[in-house]
């Protein structure tokens, strides 16, 4: 069963974009992560579990700080997988790991892929690993049945769009802006064009992330894309110790297409 595809299919059958939430493992504590993730999954179709990293060069201040807190709390790759395992026992929704490449390389690609599958992870999202550099990971993941999501950006040229669309096996992650993760005012006007350019070359689901933090921004993305990714806004709320319920419900309602 492909839970990632199911996430998009279920959403489409309800005339909405899929709601994809991101939370860093171990943040603010391992127990609180689990609690927030369970709440979030009552609304979200797919959860990205972030592997905290010392040098997250694609992330803005919110996720940087969260990662520092999680690492200071002792989070490790195997600790992150242990959190994923606990979640898997309590949900049948799609779970993906979002991680920079160095932790994968350090653990070893093969070991990482098998550990991910073993705890019930459906795929990996790779913010600093373009498909060009994934020539060993791609066949490994394919053989194991683990999905891979690569990213596209507003600066991506036609040949990049073709390459990333071909090599992504989960969904395609379109970054809404040139920039790092974090909330912004509004969604850039170029997003519909970027999504259209991707959809022109692939039938795979396309989700848009970066800068989506509430109903309005979710709405403007849901109108054009198959999925809406929310990270920093959830992390801020979780960091405050508040329940994710209100924000998650708001974003879910912003995901409707009509």
């Amino acid at each position, binding site marked *: 069963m492909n839970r990632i595809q199911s996430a998009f299919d279920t959403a489409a059958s309800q005339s909405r974009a899929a709601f994809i939430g991101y939370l860093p493992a171990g943040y603010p504590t391992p127990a609180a992560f689990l609690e927030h993730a369970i709440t979030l999954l009552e609304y979200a179709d797919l959860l990205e579990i972030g592997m905290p*990293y*010392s*040098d*997250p*060069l*694609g992330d*803005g*201040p919110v996720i*940087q*700080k969260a990662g*520092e807190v999680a*690492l200071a709390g002792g989070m*490790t*790759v195997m600790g992150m997988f242990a959190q994923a395992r606990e979640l898997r026992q309590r949900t049948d929704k799609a779970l993906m790991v979002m991680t*920079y*490449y*160095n*932790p*994968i*390389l*350090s*653990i070893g690609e093969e070991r990482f892929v098998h550990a991910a599958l073993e705890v019930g992870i459906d795929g990996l999202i790779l*913010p*600093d*690993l*373009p498909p*060009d*550099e994934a020539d060993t990971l791609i066949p490994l993941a394919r053989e194991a049945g683990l999905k891979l999501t*690569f*990213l*596209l*950006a*507003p*600066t*991506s*040229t036609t040949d*990049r769009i073709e390459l*990333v669309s071909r090599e992504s096996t989960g969904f395609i992650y379109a*970054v809404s*802006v*040139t*920039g*790092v993760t974090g909330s912004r005012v509004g969604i850039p006007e170029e997003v519909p064009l970027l999504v259209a350019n991707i959809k022109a070359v692939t039938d795979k689901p396309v989700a848009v992330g970066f800068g989506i933090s509430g109903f309005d921004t979710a709405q403007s993305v849901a109108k054009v894309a198959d999925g809406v990714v929310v990270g920093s806004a959830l992390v801020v709320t979780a960091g405050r110790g508040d329940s994710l319920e209100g924000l998650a419900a708001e974003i879910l309602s912003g995901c409707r297409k009509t």
Partner: protein
Amino acid sequence: MTLPTYPLPNARGRYGRFGGRYVPETLIPALEELRIAYEDAKKDPAFLGELQTILREYVGRPSRLYFAKNLTERLGGAKIYLKREDLNHTGAHKINNTIGQVLLAKRMGKRRIIAETGAGQHGVATATACALMGLECIVYQGEEDVRRQSLNVFRMKLLGAEVRPVSSGTRTLKDATNEAIRDWVTNVRDTFYVLGSVVGPHPYPAMVRDFQSVVGEEVKSQLLEVEGRSTPDAVVACVGGGSNAIGVFAPYAYLKDRPRLIGVEAAGHGVESGLHAASVAGGKVGVLHGSMMYLLSDENGQITPAHSISAGLDYPGIGPEHSHYSESGVAEYVPVTDAEALEGFKLLSECEGIIPALETAHAIAYLRTLAPELGKDKVIVVNLSGRGDKDVQEVMRVLEDMEATRAVTH
């Protein structure tokens, strides 16, 4: 003048298994644009002519190759020549690269320049090139380094640059580099990122190497004049990311009869102590700042902080070409501790009247081993990558601390 062409990297920006482009997708088109613009500029006589004029008239090239007679006699072994990059405008080799990159930025029509800096030498060299060419300049520097290097912060500001303190992570060079990359991801369409070392995604390690190769190319002809041969027996340079070392290594590395190439890493309190910046001696293969290389990281792939008395070597990785040289045996990399570097610092000051940068002092320190070992009929060239004025205060503080400790234990 020409810029050199070397057999590596390959079309994918690889030096053996090292190098590549491990960056967010947003930057891939910008790196392609940069690669093409650089290759184009390399063939353009107007660009090369302007570069040559600035290097000669403004930087003061060629820098001297100085026979260090007193040091040679003191160590009682091989003849030691010092390549005087410390005499360049701004006091270090860094300017060779920033002039090249800022000229390229201007040629590409980019008006906004960003850079990372540790101790501030690359920041000052970038700010200098931007002042010369009339471009906006923003320098990212870790909060910790801003505090430690207030003189260079002031110099950068005086030169018209904006210095942005970075408060994430370890608040040093590694994090300043992360922040510069984040700025570039955000402002990629109108911004040129001037990287200061032979690290980062392709084509940076190759481009920085090419601009620094002027050092080694000059050594060849200068040595030919005084020794009747262009190749010494050994070339020694300190390595953090590795830009001054690659400048003297690369022109020799691909020759059939190459000299011993010896990179001196900063071993801090000693490689075994865990407090060091020796990526070859104490690191492993990983990915940082867009490139695969030897670096310091734990078993979870988290980058571990580097330590060195010298801020310029205080970086947890060594560039991909050096990583390849090490793995394939083209060059050797040896560790030198903080304490040994201080000895080197004093040695060159006392016997030649030249105060070296603390970075360079690591290379000097290794001569105490190498010169006697090679023997009198041999020739060593050391890249004297920078002058030590910036370090005098820090060295004074450290030496006083050591005196105080000694007084207590006696």
